[in-house]
């Protein structure tokens, strides 16, 4: 048993108290929790005592006003939403998904913002990957627009930012974008030379 755990001053006085802690642990945890670890932490006498605890926990979750269930996976115990809530949850969260941008789109967005007007080839070169996808995505979202044609063979489209772009990023005009000098200053801030360390 972990000595550090033993060090802390704990006293689970009642079943209720243990159930409450169990809920907090399962709520927080990223991974399924091993039953042994929990039993250890509660200093359970034997497996039966711990089983009783888990059953009590499940009984509470089974009440009508609860939306969660206990899931026993190979790795241990985990709290998850009840299966019959799935469609409603999807409906609730679906609304948000429409306004999301991927990191690829954001990178593309930043290139258009700082290098406009710019072609897809130039964007792709800077990102090191073909960028037709994100450009299309941003066009659909009306964050960029075709502002002209480049006077080179093939006359590729040139892309620029839109008013929609300004609105989303809370800018009045393009000059409000952080300048690269400002940013560089922040990231390259050097320590002042010490005058005392002679």
């Amino acid at each position, binding site marked *: 048993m972990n000595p550090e755990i033993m060090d802390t001053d704990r006293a689970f006085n009642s079943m209720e108290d243990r159930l409450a802690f169990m809920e*907090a642990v399962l*709520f*927080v*945890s*990223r991974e399924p929790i091993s039953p042994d670890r929990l039993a250890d932490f509660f200093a359970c006498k034997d497996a039966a005592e711990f089983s009783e605890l888990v059953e009590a926990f499940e009984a509470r979750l089974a009440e009508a006003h609860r939306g969660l269930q206990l899931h026993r996976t190979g790795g241990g115990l985990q709290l*998850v*939403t009840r299966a019959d809530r*799935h469609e409603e*949850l*999807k409906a609730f*969260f679906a609304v*948000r*998904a429409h*306004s*999301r*941008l*991927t*990191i690829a789109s*954001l*990178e593309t*967005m*930043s*290139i258009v*913002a*700082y290098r406009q007007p710019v072609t897809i080839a130039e964007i792709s*070169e*800077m*990102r*090191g990957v073909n960028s037709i996808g994100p450009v299309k995505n941003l066009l659909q979202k009306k964050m960029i627009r075709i502002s002209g044609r480049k006077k080179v063979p093939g006359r590729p489209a040139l892309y620029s930012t839109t008013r929609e772009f300004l609105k*989303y*990023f*809370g*800018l009045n005009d393009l000059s*409000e*974008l*952080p*300048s*690269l*000098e400002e*940013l*560089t*200053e922040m*990231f*390259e801030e*050097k*320590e*002042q030379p*010490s*005058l*005392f360390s*002679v």
Partner: protein
Amino acid sequence: MQTDGYQVRTESFEGPLDLLLYLIRKKKMNIMDVRISEITSEYLHYLEDHRGINPSREGDFLMTASTLIYIKSRSLLPRPDSVAEDSEESRLLHSLVEYDKVQKIARLLQEKEGGQLVLWRRQEVPENFETREYELEEVSSFQLAELFLNLVKRSERERVFYITSKNYSIEEKRVEILGMLDRDGFIDFVAYVAGLDSIEEVLVSFFTLLELVKLRLVVAVQKRLFDSISVWKQPAGDESGNHGH
């Protein structure tokens, strides 16, 4: 630092205002009643001993030191109707009053932060409802700029700007001060500083003096609290630092 009934500081001072407020509180003075001359020497003691001075902020501490010396030296000179030094002093006091508020708010925020840190949030939420995408409202123009900067660096097609800080000519001052010492034997530093035109020049002079003291090229002595600072050349071979007593 000896304990004197006041709390001992364990962390370094954020900056000169932090140190000044600390000295004022230590004396249990009200900020509005403070005479700069009463805390100047203590401030300088801290600087000399390097106690609690944030090493990356030395320049700021020295800047304020020169302001303090400037104020004090002006106050020692018989120029009663001068408005300039008053405005310098009242400006500093105003800064202290404002900074005092900042510290109070910071303390409040720190308490609130503590209250939040005992509340645990979920560390991860199920994949079904989480996408690894960004919501626009969560993306600021700063992040956009940061992304672009990284792309610029990555593609290595751009030279990155380096901002260099202003360069004070300590070297020239050093030559000047050493030259005066060779000629006159000693310098009354307060009188010398009082004759300078700009705060910048006072600052450079003070920097230079500190450096010369550290290099043990000169000896600077202030016999009593309100005395002027006298500067001599360090006698050759003597490095003990016990001078003027």
